[in-house]
């Protein structure tokens, strides 16, 4: 297939908002994700992966200190907005995909869409 690109749809957000959300608010959020998934399928985009991530306080970061790898607790960068989840979507229509991503943009954060690089066609 030509023209099909895999995009990472990244969902940064203020985790404190999610932690404080009521069951109804969470249900509403998941309902938006259901609608997002449904519309993607309906309009010819394919979800090939994705996950909801645990709170960034559970993150581990591995860095090299010159003599070996060091594991530390906490997210890569201190920031109010942290990556809270992601989708991998195959699509041949970025504009339409971006329009649908508007569904997921809310008060607690925007949506970042990045094309992945396909090295299949690289000279070997």
């Amino acid at each position, binding site marked *: 297939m030509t023209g099909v690109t895999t995009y990472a749809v990244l969902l940064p957000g203020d985790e404190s908002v999610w932690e404080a959300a009521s*069951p*109804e608010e*969470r*249900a509403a959020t*998941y309902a938006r994700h*259901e609608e997002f*998934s*449904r519309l*993607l*399928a309906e309009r010819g985009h394919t979800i090939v992966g994705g996950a909801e991530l645990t709170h960034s306080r559970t993150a581990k970061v591995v860095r090299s200190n010159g003599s070996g790898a060091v594991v530390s607790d906490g997210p890569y960068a201190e920031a109010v907005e942290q990556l809270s989840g992601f989708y991998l979507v195959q699509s041949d229509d970025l504009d339409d995909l971006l329009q649908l991503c508007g569904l997921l943009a809310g008060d607690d954060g925007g949506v970042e869409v990045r094309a992945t690089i396909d090295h299949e066609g690289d000279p070997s």
Partner: protein
Amino acid sequence: MTVLEEVVRDDWGRLLALLVARFGRLDLAEDALADAVEAAARTWPADGVPANPAAWLLTAARRRALDRLRAEAVAARRVPVLAVEAELAQEAQRTMADSGEVLVDERLRLVLLCAHPSLSREAAAALTLRLVMGVTTEDVARLFLVPTPTMAARLTRARKRLAGARFELPPPDALPGRVTFVEDVAYLAFTAGYAPGSGADVLRADVAGEALRLVAVLRSVLPAGLPERDQAELDALLALMLLQHSRRDARVRDGALVLLPDQDRGLWRHDEVAEAVELLQPWVHAPPSPYLLQALVAAEHAIAPSPGETAWERIVQRYDELLDLVDSPVVRLNRAVAVAEASGPQAGLAALSGVALPGHRLPAVRAELLARLGRYDEARTAYDAALAMCGNDAERAHLLTRRAETDAG
């Protein structure tokens, strides 16, 4: 099943536990036993099966381990050793000297070593199936839907993590806590066999059956005197697994998933149902606990002669009790399904409001209830949402069929 397969199935854990007690090393014990099994596969068909197959394997494994130790001494390798009390090691040695006529059962130590709190539940589950139940690495990989080399690496990491751990029984007051962890690990392995992940594999029930056997083994090797609530949970877990497992032949027809109401109840293993009901009998009026309530729900399905005769009100009641103990979106979803059966789809939909759960199950249930109410447009939308998030072929096929039926309606 050949004699050798039978011995491996029934005695692997017992033999391995003895070898670990004697040599204090998981890697050495496991390799030696695997070598002995291989030797048996080679020689038994020609020389005939020995009078005491388990003792034959134990002797062969012990020789093999001693050979390896000698070779290692030459290589002067340092290997981490498990802490085994001297008395236990001696007893294991004595058992082997007796040519294994009487096998002391050290499987509880082995179970507690494998289902070790320092391991993740997934790693502990895989290791316990491999070491206590003798399930091959390939089958463990199949159960958890990962490639065999991935599982082999995961098992190796888990074994390494246990180096230096104690091969011992915890003090009596700490035992229930450890048993609870083993239960969680066993149930995780069991549900892995039944919860379709992604791909075409509908169920891996045979391997899940090994997790069931693990709980039966645990029950048989635990000392008497477990606190009542813990005993109830252990019995209930075994009953719960038996009840779910008893439906394995009815869950698939022509490669497609068959849900509970549509299953041919004649295909259920009624001996296993009877065994489960007997296990639950003493605990029916016991104070509620999570596995007990789930087992009682499963039992309601098992004793109903037909789907229409299911005691849904009682099931809703059990779910209400379960919600008091563990309030989780999955319990709420299951409760809503029961409410819909007891009081109609409208009540079921109402019970679903406020349930927050990612994935395809929530929209699939909502779609089903909307379809029953004749709200076909909304039902189709919900089916599409479920389909967009469902990665399992068998479940997708089911959802597509149901969606097509709303077109006809």
